């Protein structure tokens, strides 16, 4: 199995960076300067998590085989589920 690192950044990698930053900061053993650095790393990774979620496409498509064997995509409509009654009474 090839060990090619995927070019696409993975959400879970960024999340792990955030967790590591939190753990390091909460450990309390870092100097002030290093604490700031860790904080910045953590916040940057956090931003990237949000960015991935924001940029993700929300499309649902049906694939159609073309004559030359390639795949074309067109929108696929699925009727939406009925609205569930709201649980909150206020």
């Amino acid at each position, binding site marked *: 199995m090839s060990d090619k690192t995927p070019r696409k950044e993975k959400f879970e990698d960024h999340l792990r960076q955030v967790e590591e930053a939190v753990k390091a900061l909460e450990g309390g053993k870092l100097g002030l300067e290093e604490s700031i650095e860790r904080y910045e790393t953590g916040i940057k990774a956090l931003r990237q998590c949000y960015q991935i979620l924001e940029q993700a496409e929300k499309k649902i*498509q049906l694939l159609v085989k073309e004559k030359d064997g390639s795949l074309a995509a067109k929108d696929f409509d699925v*009727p939406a589920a009925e609205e569930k009654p709201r649980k909150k009474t206020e």
Partner: protein
Amino acid sequence: MALAAESLQPSGREILSVGELTRRIKRSIEDGVREVWVAGEISNLRPASSGHLYFTLKDEESQVPCAMWKGTAGRLRFRPEDGMEVVAFGRVDVYVPYGKYQLIVEDLEPRGVGSLQLRFEQLKERLRKEGLFDPARKRPVPFLPRKLALVTSPTGAAVQDMIRTIRTRCPVVHVLVYPVRVQGEGAAEEIAAAIGHLNLAVPDLDVLIVGRGGGSIEDLWAFNEEVVARAIRASRVPVVSAVGHETDTTIADFAADVRALTPTDGAVRAVPKLDDLLLALADRELQLKRSLAARAELSRSVLDGLAGGRALGRLEELPARLGERLDDLASRLGAWASQAARPLRGRLELLRASLHADLPRMAEGARQRSRHLAEILASHASRALEAARSRLREADARLGALSPLAILSRGYSITERESTGEILRQSRQAGPGDRLITRLSDGTLLSRVEEPPATP
């Protein structure tokens, strides 16, 4: 000198030729026993090089030789084995030249267990031995797939259930539907081809869900075919199998990286819950800020302590102690000096005197320097602290301008208990009387819980 005696005239002995006898037997059998179903145990199974199959069907009483032609044998849905209990359908044939009879088998079915079930067991065992189901070869499904493909029928409830589940649970996934037939002749080949095609044509595909809704074992059979199992195993993209109802297990389920019980379950296992993700992210953000603030506070108090003059106190004592030591030194020297070193003593006296004069000045210098040092330290500290504070403010502002608020503006809010600062995820974390701070997109609301938690 054979007397041809075709009729059964009781005119003395009737003498038949062997051929005639055999032909009579043949007629008798073939008239009396046309097509039959026979139950028995297979033994002495031997495929001939011609492709025809020969075996014996036996029970406690008797046995009958059987033959199955190549074409018929090839259409069998299972592999016959010695010892297997079967039911055979065929006709008896008397082969005149050898004087032997045999059952020409036209159809064979395993007895007790359906032939499909048997075939399922045989294939499963064969593939398992090959290592196709080895847990070590299974790949994990990515935590947040950005592109997901469904290999399933484009019509029917299953595809709609899967899409709806994905849309509700995690709307930020790009879903592709590769339509295939999920039963009937050629369906297995279509499914296998779809898996292969997706691997080639969509390089950034994160996960594949292969499945269909419930049905009979015949309906689901395509997912028991070898070609599908091999395609799943050969897929670079992790595959979730989602076939039928909870009680249905297919060979595709064994071969897949993740086995789901139903199509909806497949969607659940393939994507995370977006709500949980967002809350987790908001949590971490708060933790980061709190930890940094705590760390900065710690530094500040240490520096405050330094600037408060504790170090200076020690410095001030120094001149007095220095003077003591000099006196002591001088008296000891003096005893010796008075004996042998009057000039030295004189010089020592001078030294001492001058030191005494200098000491206050030295002490003052030291004091000033330490005060100056403390000031420098204090200003550095407050500059570092100010820098930290402004970076925090900036990061806060930058963060505030980004997605968390966008998500908040959609109606999400974050609620924490004022007293402890803990973020509420469940209603039972707060009770009547608790003051709560709720952060909305544009600010916060302070509220108090009126009633005990009510869960629907």
